[in-house]
């Protein structure tokens, strides 16, 4: 077996430098430098990058004709990443990094040797015996936290939880003065060979394992009664230690979205008689498109539409229909005292969904119970449905359901606004506000209905050219 040392010491052995099983004998000198690596915010040190520069002499081993065998072994040992590094008795304390079962581990897939230089010394041996001694210059870098890391639940002993978690934020206002909030940050965890075992090429965790744990805390702070999350990115670095994440939130318009809808757009149009000059009667058109979260029924789109349709039609009871045998000017016929928008029809249809999986909060549940009762149109409604249609998106468009309806509204010009329900109700077709917020909260944070969790077991470190054959 080849000697794995740089030779027998002739000086007192004070201190120890050993890496990945290769031990420097006392014929070496070292210098150590440390760089404090700040977190992305530049406010604190996430770890110290220690660089040890060593110069040692390889001398002929016992019963060896030359040092060729030693050098081959040393080269293999000193070039590998993630080995156990021992550096003692040099005034830096007893530094033992990546020792299996130890307490101190590199946090960035190190220690990482960076330089290996051999300088033959003196003449070679007799004949073709080869070189008898050489100088070795070698540099290794190891990243270790100054504060002893906490043991991780999922990681092996010594692997701290998180090295850094910070963010930057931005607020922008568009030309309509609506806000967009951007939150972008970094989550970094320590990783090295599992439990310091350089032969272990598998991962037991990645930064993605911390995605939900940390970023749901961020998402909990979103005010979904005012904003909706329009973009989320979670990018895991190639070494699987760093998760760069960002959220973009856009301010909601006055009309909130119906529950479970991730997208809803539409228009209500009112047009007076088109065939002759007239300011009455009116045809009201309602058209809206919905995208319902994928893990809920697309029937919710219909629930949202029919609820809004019914609500708006029922506002016709605020309208005025003049009487032909009254000769007073029609525009002087008073609009009755507005009874208000009345009960938001909320969503009688939602009652049928009470058996669906309990994603809704207690708020939605209580609302559903409140509208389970039959809700006949109130008295005095003066509108009639005229047409109805819908478009089902197919294939790649099957996210979207579109409904449209028109109704006839024979009310005066003076009362058309109050009879059409324009800009009512406050909370959208069914709910909106807190109700909508609660119905999409779980898909507005670190995940969606598909969690898309990175599987650490699929990760393996492969050396195509830098490792052993």
């Amino acid at each position, binding site marked *: 077996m080849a000697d794995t040392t740089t030779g027998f010491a002739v000086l007192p052995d004070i201190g120890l430098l050993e890496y990945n099983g290769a031990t420097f004998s006392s014929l070496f000198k070292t210098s150590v430098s440390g760089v404090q690596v700040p977190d992305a915010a530049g406010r604190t040190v996430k770890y110290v990058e220690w660089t040890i520069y060593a110069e040692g002499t390889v001398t002929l081993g016992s019963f060896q004709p030359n040092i060729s065998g030693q050098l081959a072994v040393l080269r293999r040992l000193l070039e590998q990443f993630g080995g156990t590094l021992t550096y003692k008795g040099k005034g830096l304390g007893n530094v033992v990094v990546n020792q299996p079962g130890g307490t101190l581990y590199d946090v960035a897939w190190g220690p990482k040797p960076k330089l290996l230089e051999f300088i033959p010394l003196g003449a070679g041996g007799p004949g073709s015996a080869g070189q008898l001694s050489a100088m070795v210059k070698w540099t290794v870098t190891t990243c270790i936290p100054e504060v002893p890391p906490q043991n991780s639940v999922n990681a092996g002993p010594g692997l701290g939880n998180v090295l850094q978690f910070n963010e930057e934020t931005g607020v922008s206002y568009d030309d309509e003065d609506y806000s967009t909030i951007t939150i972008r940050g970094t989550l970094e965890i320590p990783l090295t060979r599992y439990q310091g075992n350089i032969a272990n090429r598998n991962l037991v965790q990645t930064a993605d394992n911390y995605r939900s744990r940390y970023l749901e805390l961020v998402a909990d702070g979103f005010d979904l009664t005012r904003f909706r999350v329009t973009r989320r990115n979670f990018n895991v670095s190639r070494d699987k230690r760093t998760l760069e994440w960002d959220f973009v939130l856009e301010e909601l318009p*006055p009309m909130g979205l119906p529950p479970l809808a991730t997208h809803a757009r539409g228009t209500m149009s009112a047009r007076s008689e088109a065939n002759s000059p007239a300011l009455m009667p009116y045809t009201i058109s309602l058209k809206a498109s919905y995208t319902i979260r994928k893990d809920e029924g697309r029937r919710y789109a219909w629930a949202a539409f029919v609820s809004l349709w019914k609500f708006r039609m029922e506002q016709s009871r605020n309208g005025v229909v003049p009487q032909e045998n009254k000769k007073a000017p029609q525009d002087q016929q008073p609009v009755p005292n507005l009874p208000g928008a009345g009960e938001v029809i909320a969503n009688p249809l939602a009652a049928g969904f009470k058996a669906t999986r309990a994603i809704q909060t207690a708020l939605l549940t209580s609302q559903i119970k409140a509208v389970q009762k039959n809700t*006949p*149109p109130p008295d005095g409604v003066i509108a009639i449905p005229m047409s109805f249609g819908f478009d089902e998106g197919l294939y790649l468009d099957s996210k979207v359901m579109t409904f449209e309806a028109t109704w006839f509204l024979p009310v005066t010009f003076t009362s058309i606004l*109050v009879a059409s329900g324009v800009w009512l109700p406050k909370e959208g077709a069914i709910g909106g506000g807190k109700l909508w917020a609660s119905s999409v909260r779980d898909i507005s944070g670190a995940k969606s209905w*598909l969690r898309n969790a990175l599987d650490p077991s699929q990760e393996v470190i492969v050396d195509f050219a830098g490792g052993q054959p």
Partner: protein
Amino acid sequence: MVFRFFQDENKAQGITGSQVQAGISNADDGRIIEKGITLPWLFNPRYSWMAYQCWIECHLDSGMVLHKPLPQSNPEPDTLASGFVSPLDNDFESNVAGVNLKSTGNYTDVVQRMANSDYRFVLKGYGMRAGYQIPIPGLKSVGGVDAVPDERQFGQNTIVGNCSGIPIWYAEWDLWYFVNLPPTKAQVPPPNVALHIAGDQQLSPTIQAPYSQPDGNAVAAIPQTNLGPAVVPKP
């Protein structure tokens, strides 16, 4: 070798013993849920008129006749044409003459009263109504005198639409009347019950703009605003 970087969703979400693929299926008990959800319609007959037009046509036979004596000469035939397109006049595009009423004849016909004036009135119209048939209108008087139904009377109601169980009725009428006394005053046209207005409607010099209602986000008190300088908390 296949790379599957992302976990099976059931595994990722900790779901075991379920045939439901997490994140894919939605739950729906399949019940009929729309029962009891009703839409309004124009149930009150007064509001049920969707279209209506009704008018009175007046036909007058003045009782006068025109006698045509034999011609005493043979002038060129009269024509209303002031230009010709076949063959096309060279100056047709610049012709500005309009209808040619200049006769080539030179004659005087004889006019004779044969009877009193004969007034005939036709009440015509159509209507569309939701749910209810359209009453065929009639005249009791016209021009200030009694109207007498003539021999021609036509009216019909038919269903032209089905609004989910509510028939949409369409009607037409063509009713003739005569009078045996000379009319004494102008006749106000029939009202339009769909537009809810009568011909003798009193007019207003202005039109009232539509009344509005509070925005759904409005509250009944002035909201507290704080658009001034931001308040910086003391450390």
